[in-house]
């Protein structure tokens, strides 16, 4: 075996190694992207679902199908702070006022998921058991405004001053490749008691 043959073997081994590295990196990147893109799709669907549910429920703050049962919608918000709210509405349009309570659970409840920040967003209707599902919510922040558009800082002692609410939601994927969690954000202003104003 001559010198040139040895050089050929060494050269081919080096080039083959580089090719294997490229292929391995490519495979790794493809796996990561496939995993994370699936998570991204799920989290965007989750965010849209959470926003849709909140949109539907918050739109009804102070609503009653028989206005005589609740003539003053300014009393609709019973309790409000930065990450929870309890308000009155006729959620099932049966003319009886219902209470809806939204609040965020602790991170320890979802310690079984890889994401250390996800929490359960609970919805409680009247005295029924709290309902929730893991949508990957990591932030549920409420900011309250009075009729002049000024922010009302918590703790809110007079919920009747609230005329609009800014809803901030962040949803992250509950699991991610290499702990590279994706997130999506929603910020919306929602009016309280739309029927309150006489236009």
């Amino acid at each position, binding site marked *: 075996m001559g010198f040139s043959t040895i050089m050929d073997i060494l*050269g081919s081994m080096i080039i083959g190694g580089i090719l294997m590295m490229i292929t391995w990196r490519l495979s790794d990147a493809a796996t990561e992207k496939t995993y994370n893109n699936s998570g991204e799709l799920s989290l*965007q669907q989750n965010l849209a679902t959470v926003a849709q549910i909140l949109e539907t429920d918050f739109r009804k703050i102070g609503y009653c199908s028989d206005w005589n049962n609740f003539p003053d919608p300014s009393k609709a918000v019973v309790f409000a702070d930065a990450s929870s709210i309890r308000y009155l509405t006729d959620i099932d349009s049966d003319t009886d006022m219902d209470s809806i309570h939204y609040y965020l659970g602790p991170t320890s409840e979802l310690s079984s998921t890889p994401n250390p920040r996800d929490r359960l967003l609970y919805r409680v209707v009247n005295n029924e058991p709290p309902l929730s599902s893991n949508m990957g919510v990591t932030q549920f922040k409420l900011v309250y405004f009075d009729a002049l558009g000024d922010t009302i800082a918590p703790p809110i002692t007079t919920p009747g001053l609230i005329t609009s609410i800014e809803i901030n939601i962040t949803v992250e994927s509950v699991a991610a490749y290499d702990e590279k969690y994706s997130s999506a*954000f929603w910020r919306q*202003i929602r009016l309280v008691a*739309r029927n309150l*104003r*006489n236009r």
Partner: protein
Amino acid sequence: MNTGQSLLSIGALFLLSLTVLRVNNSILLTDSVMQDSKFGILATSLATSLIEKASKKAFDANTYSNSVSALNELTSAGGLGPGSGETAPDSCNDFDDFNGYTDSVTTLPSANFYLEAKVCYVNPNTPDVKLNTQSWHKKMTVIVASTSSQDTIRLSTIYSYWHFR
């Protein structure tokens, strides 16, 4: 290594390069679509927020403190927009003050967004046609764009006048 082997090696490397480029292109395209979709969700929330803010206002400057019963008592179609000293969204008092409103949102964690709103009178039977005369219905169109996104979000709402007697 003879010439044939060299050519085969070069061909193999060329094929591998093409494969890598294709995969990278595919990954970047998917990322771009995902980002566009994410920005679309956020832009929709900004547009609905602006619609909510406008819906809180009176139907017209002339209905802010009094009721009106004739169309000619409303602001003329050419006069839709903020009055003197009014600036949307906070210091204005009626829905059409948002006509010509522009804003940029730079405080969000992902991208910068640019908002524009237009208000016009419409007939409920032909809501896509702008009226040049007064009617009991005003249509607000909100456009949200971002340099980070290929898509522009356009949402519309119709606000009608009603009054408890």
